């Protein structure tokens, strides 16, 4: 069953705009996945593989992996609550300069403002509540809309500084 879902993701990516050789390569992705971890993982690996191919640095790929993992887990587990009827909708525009990714679930939503700060002393020993902090810390932009069901996030590809001449 996972193979079918992996295939769906590959088809979605295969239907994207072809890469151009003038440095303006651009991958578009628009896919709906089932609310299960295997589907989320397959999609995550596909996106990261595309970013590596587009020249994202290891640090930038690390940041997107961390944030995208948390975003997909939130959507699948806390948003859709693993409901097989509900889908997670993922759209992405990937270029050598930046990754623009939207993750939207079909759950009840949440209010970002009432999520407690997990770095405060009284919350430090609590076992949950760090996914949102990691997303906001590792992405250049992270914004929840549609009552918390839709997360839009952007990561700029930070180039390594050139070695001194």
């Amino acid at each position: 069953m996972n193979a079918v879902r992996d295939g769906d993701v590959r088809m979605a990516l295969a239907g994207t705009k072809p890469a151009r050789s003038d440095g303006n390569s651009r991958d578009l992705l628009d896919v709906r996945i089932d609310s299960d971890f295997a589907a989320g993982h397959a999609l995550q690996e596909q996106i990261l593989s595309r970013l590596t191919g587009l020249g994202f640095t290891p640090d930038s790929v690390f940041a997107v992996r961390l944030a995208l993992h948390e975003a997909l887990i939130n959507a699948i587990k806390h948003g859709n609550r693993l409901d097989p009827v509900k889908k997670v909708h993922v759209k992405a525009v990937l270029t050598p300069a930046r990754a623009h990714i939207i993750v939207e679930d079909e759950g009840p939503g949440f209010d970002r403002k009432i999520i407690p700060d997990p770095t405060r002393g009284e919350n430090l020993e609590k076992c949950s509540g760090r996914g949102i902090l990691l997303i906001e810390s590792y992405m250049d932009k992270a914004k929840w809309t549609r009552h918390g069901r839709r997360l839009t996030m952007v990561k700029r590809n930070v180039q390594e500084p050139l070695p001194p001449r």
Partner: protein
Amino acid sequence: MAESTPPLALCWQKDIRIAEFTNNKILDDARISEIGQTLDLLVDEAASPKLLLDFSNVDHLSSAALGMLINTNNKIKQKNGQLRLSDIRPQIMEVFVITKLNRLFKILPTRKDALASFQ
């Protein structure tokens, strides 16, 4: 979802339990829960557990993995035990710093430093 390699390689150094993560990613729920169960057993086996977690192989972890570590830390604290973390790569260390969990855990640069820090 049985894995052929256990997620933790275990050994003793005197009365200190050393557990080294064998996978480079601590991300998926099933793996994290398997690790959590093993750590629970290690905490249960000693009256006042001394546990060292070696992160040498780890290059990715998730918020759920951090939650599992906090849970272990809380259980060890309840038994007046000691927990040390060592050999954390710079990218992973940044995750601990961002979440301020570097203040909660006792983190040492190397396994040798960590072993020497137990009382």
